């Protein structure tokens, strides 16, 4: 039962263009969403998060959009750089059902982003 789905195993874009990574979820109790980036032989690195009370959050080149009615979120990277090449994981949690904090994260399978020079 995959509650968080990243349907694109891989994505290839040209340097300077926009990268759009997508994520769908099925659990309506999820109210907090995060994106992590992972390089080989390293642990996941936190990128950006969004609460369900918002529909957009921006941090530098990274923007996350949340469409609650569609249970869909996306991560936009503009402009894409070769150093962005990594596996990107979408994660979700049900904060309200976890005592308000330090919730368990449910991850998708990840999308391998390759940014070509």
């Amino acid at each position: 039962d995959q509650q968080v789905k990243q349907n694109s195993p891989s994505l290839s874009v040209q340097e300077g263009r926009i990268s759009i990574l997508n994520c769908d979820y099925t659990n309506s109790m999820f109210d907090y969403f995060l994106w992590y980036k992972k390089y080989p032989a390293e642990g996941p690195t936190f990128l950006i998060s969004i609460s369900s009370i918002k529909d957009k959050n921006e941090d530098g080149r990274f923007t996350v959009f949340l469409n609650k009615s569609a249970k869909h979120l996306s991560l936009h990277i503009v402009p894409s750089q070769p150093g962005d090449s990594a596996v990107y994981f979408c994660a979700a949690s049900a904060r309200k059902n976890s005592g308000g904090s330090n919730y368990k994260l449910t991850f998708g399978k990840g999308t391998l982003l390759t940014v070509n020079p």
Partner: protein
Amino acid sequence: DAGVTQSPTHLIKTRGQQVTLRCSPKSGHDTVSWYQQALGQGPQFIFQYYEEEERQRGNFPDRFSGHQFPNYSSELNVNALLLGDSALYLCASSSRRLAGDGTDTQYFGPGTRLTVL
């Protein structure tokens, strides 16, 4: 400021053996969560420790157990190892005391690669 550290980096065991993995949280963090990442999959939540007690648990058998020490560091123990336990084991730390406004984001260590032969 040291981030999350894990030891050992790699480990090879045989079926039926027992293994102990170790994690030191990021400075100022009091909560440790453990995740298992199988090849080609996203991380899966094993359990979470706070104030030296297991607070949440994922769908893992009792062969998986843990401990948290007064200095907030943690151990993951796996008994009666199976071939299917081969995976990357990730530790994540966060702060329950500072939870709220995004400060309860989980930060991951580099992981321990366990191979069971």
